């Protein structure tokens, strides 16, 4: 292939960022990138065109084991991530001497130390039979409710309802009806979500299952993730 053609270079950079290249083609392209600064710029430009989408991604707290694994793999001194929250950044900014950027820094300090609530942690991701996630169950803080919210809009006619079930030892237990529109969520007491169970969403007649057991097809399900 003639990698000098500007059209081809632009096209490869775009498809690399979109992510549709097969793995081997990605690898080959990355070797080209390594000593082609101009091509790296084309990739950066494509990242900037698409990344507003990722800035809009839902904030989800990863399990603590991920950070521990990073620390272990890099053999970092145990700089506790717990201390390194917003208090940590305050201390950091106190120590920083950025005289020239004093005004800008003041604005940043305000943003940096505003006590933001901890992001929710993931309890389960409920996917359809194609593996596409439809609902996410999260919990904020210790002992709080579990919130089940749609990840995207799902079409549902007025004669049907989505009903949420907790399944433990093969027995379904009704948890409530879900509204399949972003911005809506169902709060469920954490104690009702089984630790080694499954959360499932079935399609039921409007108003929910008349029998107390799922009567329609299971549209989404996901195992409850183990807590730290």
């Amino acid at each position: 292939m003639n990698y000098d053609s500007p059209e081809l270079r632009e096209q490869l950079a775009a498809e690399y960022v979109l992510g549709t290249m097969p793995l081997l083609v990605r690898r080959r392209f990355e070797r080209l990138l390594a000593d082609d600064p101009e091509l790296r710029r084309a990739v950066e430009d494509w990242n900037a065109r698409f990344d507003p989408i990722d800035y809009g991604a839902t904030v989800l707290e990863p399990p603590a084991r991920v950070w521990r694994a990073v620390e272990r793999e890099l053999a970092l001194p145990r700089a506790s991530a717990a201390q390194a929250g917003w208090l940590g950044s305050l201390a950091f900014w106190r120590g920083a001497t950025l005289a020239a950027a004093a005004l800008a820094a003041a604005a940043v300090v305000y943003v940096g130390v505003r006590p933001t609530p901890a992001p929710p942690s993931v309890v389960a991701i409920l996917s359809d039979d194609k593996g596409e996630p439809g609902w996410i169950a999260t919990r904020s803080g210790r002992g709080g409710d579990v919130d089940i919210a749609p990840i995207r809009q799902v079409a549902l006619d007025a004669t049907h309802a989505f009903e949420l079930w907790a399944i433990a030892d093969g027995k379904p237990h009704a948890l409530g009806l879900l509204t399949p529109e972003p911005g809506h969520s169902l709060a469920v007491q954490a104690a009702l979500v089984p630790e080694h169970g499954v959360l499932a969403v079935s399609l039921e007649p409007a108003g929910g299952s008349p029998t107390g057991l799922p009567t329609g097809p299971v549209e989404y399900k996901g195992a409850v993730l183990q807590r730290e």
Partner: protein
Amino acid sequence: MTDSPLLLQELLRKTAAGDAAAFATLYKQTAGKLFGVAIRIAGRGEVAEDALQECFVLVWQRAADYDPTRGAAMSWLIAIMRNCTLDRLRRRARRPEGYAAAESTLSRLVAPDTASKGAEMRALKHCLGELEEQPREAVVLAYLYGLTREELAERLAVPVGTVKSWIRRSLERLRRCLDR
């Protein structure tokens, strides 16, 4: 969280100098958003966790490569997160079945939580809106969920060659529209 670009930039600079505390703060400030990106693409917690771990190992090793004149620190982190997730995804077989997407993919694009990205998001949505429906579907599904050409072909019930040319033409049209 991600609305303090100067803070993230400074944390990355300190990380490059080997400051483990700054690195831990960087993780605290950004891992939630990056994990959200990884879960959306991977669809599975365990793949996203491995990808997030790999991403931060790379961030520690390559922090010195970050060039503030070329974009926001968060954008640099997002690019690494996406690459780690896509690499892991490509190493496994997944989702062989086809499916018919009924809903509009544009409705899945959520407004960014960073004010400065709002205008860029509006422009992107506008330009995506100028594409024809199926090619747009292919582009958005690929970026959101990391689908391969073959998976896209299966889902949209068209030959792989059609997906390839849709993507090629759509990306070219997008670039012209966004650079206007």
